[in-house]
């Protein structure tokens, strides 16, 4: 079934309108990725209200293209300005910026974009083959299995997210609580509204994303004192071709990075650890590890391949299970619901043109994306030369417009400001924001899955253990939840595992 479906998808993705949409999405996405303070999740959230009137397939192509653009754009800021536009670009700055300072910015950028493209392509090919299989398996899932997968999603934030596991947990719980505010569609009762009419509609995740990631990020970046001292791009066709001639030398790094990226990426929060891990492995297996951190091209290839592979892999659980692997995928999932599509495995059966159009557009989007960023890097880098006093009000106004457009309601702009302050405080105190957003998006779905499971079992929690598939998933989830407690013991018994030690050496 695979090939002809993909062919069907390409017929949809290659229509002039959808190609045009992809170009617009990538251009906007790259701009958003270049600007610190605006990220993929935030950009997708601001644009989401504009897609309400579009056909769903074109809408998802616009949003995913924006996401690819943001992934490419992050590398530009990291390499030329030493400012990671996104958390997963941090490892790219280690060698990218030194290279740029040595006048080899063009080389570093070409390597970064090419690696991103290779990583993405690897993940897309795997998605093309695995997504239908996974969806087929997921069709047999009932509410207990879905709840177990949700549990697994959130447990991996707690167990594998790094940082304080309790703060990840608080972030998750807060997201779920916020999602429960308003009308309970099952019983028709109002929850936690305390008589305020405005609270009846609840909190929209789009507004939360714009506030937390947009306004919060601006507050953080002005505090750190923004000073853009960029290095010239030094990009031309000759540099691109010369770099392409060198890159095959790093074939092993590409393969390793792509595997790490895909493996880490389809679990939530994977892109950032994947990029660090890939960098650490590249350094470990390199013949000259002492050159890492001083401008080694391989040090750009490794994290970029993994980060982009992970970013694409985050789409796999989103389209097959209806469970997003990243905040950006979470916003897209919210979009699916708004466009009237039921996310989950049934999508493959009911809306094949949507799913396969989306998968095919991942190929076209990334090809267009890599060509566009290679061609227009100086243009995108010039955005950062716009004075800060102009960028800030523009970003704030665009965020306000995005928030208001969701429900045409003034209160949402206020929520945006409040979420902005919350985002600033949380970020400073190391509460992770991604789990909060995921919980806010998945809240209703998770609660319904839990309720239906409990109804099936007459209120016994044993149902999650008793069924074979959900039993295994629940067991893994419990293991992840327990990981922060188990790891110190394990370390003491066995010494520190190799991978973690390697990551720490950076």
């Amino acid at each position, binding site marked *: 079934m695979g090939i002809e479906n993909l062919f069907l998808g390409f017929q949809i993705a290659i229509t002039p309108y959808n190609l045009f949409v992809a170009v617009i999405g990538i251009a906007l996405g790259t701009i958003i990725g270049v600007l610190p303070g605006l990220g993929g999740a935030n950009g997708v959230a601001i644009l989401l209200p*504009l897609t309400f009137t579009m056909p769903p397939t074109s809408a998802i192509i616009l949003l995913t293209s924006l996401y690819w653009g943001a992934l490419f754009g992050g590398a530009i800021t990291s390499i030329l300005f030493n400012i990671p536009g996104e958390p997963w670009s941090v490892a790219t700055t280690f060698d990218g910026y030194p290279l740029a300072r040595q006048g080899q910015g063009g080389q570093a950028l070409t390597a970064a974009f090419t690696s991103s493209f290779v990583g993405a392509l690897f993940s897309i090919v795997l998605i093309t083959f695995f997504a239908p299989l996974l969806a087929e398996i997921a069709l047999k899932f009932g509410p207990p299995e879905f709840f177990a997968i949700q549990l697994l999603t959130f447990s991996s934030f707690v167990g594998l997210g790094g940082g304080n596991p*309790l703060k990840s947990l608080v972030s998750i719980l807060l997201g779920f609580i916020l999602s429960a505010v308003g009308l309970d569609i099952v019983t028709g009762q109002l929850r*936690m509204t305390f008589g305020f009419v405005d609270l009846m509609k609840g909190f929209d995740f789009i507004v939360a994303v714009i506030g937390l990631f947009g306004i919060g990020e601006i507050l953080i970046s002005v*505090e750190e004192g923004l000073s853009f001292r960029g290095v010239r791009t030094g990009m031309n066709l000759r540099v691109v071709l010369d770099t392409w001639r060198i890159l095959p030398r790093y074939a092993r790094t590409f393969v390793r990075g792509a595997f790490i990226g895909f493996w880490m990426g389809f679990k939530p929060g994977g892109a950032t650890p994947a990029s660090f891990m890939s960098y650490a492995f590249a350094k470990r297996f390199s013949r000259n590890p002492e050159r890492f951190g001083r401008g080694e091209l391989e040090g750009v290839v490794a994290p970029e391949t993994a980060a982009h592979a992970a970013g694409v892999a985050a789409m796999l659980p989103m389209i097959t299970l209806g469970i997003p692997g990243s905040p950006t995928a979470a916003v897209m999932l919210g979009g699916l619901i708004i466009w009237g599509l039921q996310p989950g495995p049934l999508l493959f059966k009911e809306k094949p043109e949507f799913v396969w159009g989306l998968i095919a557009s991942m190929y076209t989007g990334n090809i267009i994306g890599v060509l566009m960023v290679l061609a227009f890097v100086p243009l995108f880098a010039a955005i950062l030369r716009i004075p800060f006093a102009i960028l*800030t009000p*523009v970003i*704030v*106004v665009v965020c306000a417009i995005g928030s208001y457009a969701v429900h045409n309601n003034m209160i949402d702009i206020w929520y945006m400001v409040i979420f902005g302050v919350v985002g600033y405080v949380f970020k400073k105190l190391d509460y992770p924001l991604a789990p909060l957003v995921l919980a806010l998006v998945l809240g209703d779905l998770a609660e319904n899955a839990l309720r239906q499971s409990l109804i099936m079992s007459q209120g016994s929690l044993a149902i999650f253990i008793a069924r074979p598939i959900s039993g295994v998933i629940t067991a893994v989830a419990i293991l992840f939840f327990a990981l922060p407690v188990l790891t110190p013991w394990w370390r003491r018994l066995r010494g520190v595992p190799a991978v973690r030690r390697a990551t720490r050496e950076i």
Partner: protein
Amino acid sequence: MRAAGLVTASFLMVLGGVVVFDAVRLGIGWSTDGPKSGFFPFWLAVLLIAACAVIGVQAVSRADARPFVGRAQLGPVLKVLWPAVALVVITQWIGLYVSAALYTAVYMRWIGRHSWLAVLAVAVLFPLATFFIFEKWFLVPMPKGPLEAWLGQ
């Protein structure tokens, strides 16, 4: 850092308490057709309170002397935050586009010390561009005020 961590944890605990209060009102048990409305929020809030209690203890025991935000940092942050709040307040009366123009102009002149010409150019062109993109192209209506009414929009 320590005080801020403690205040945040306490605030979240109070929030958890409020949720528990409402969840108990809604019923946290089992009704004829499944769990009652308060069941899910109740357990979320109980976990939240427990987790925040531990975080609070951690914040107190791990002496972190760094200030949450220094005086030098607070200035720029407030300079972004207050104008943004002002933007939202005036949007309610004079509409988004005029507010955006005023906000951009004030910010550029006050923080950026740009020339009046640059201020005027950006403050006029930027809201105009957003007007055409959102209002005309994507048909997303924004809050409007007396100026738009006077212009017949």
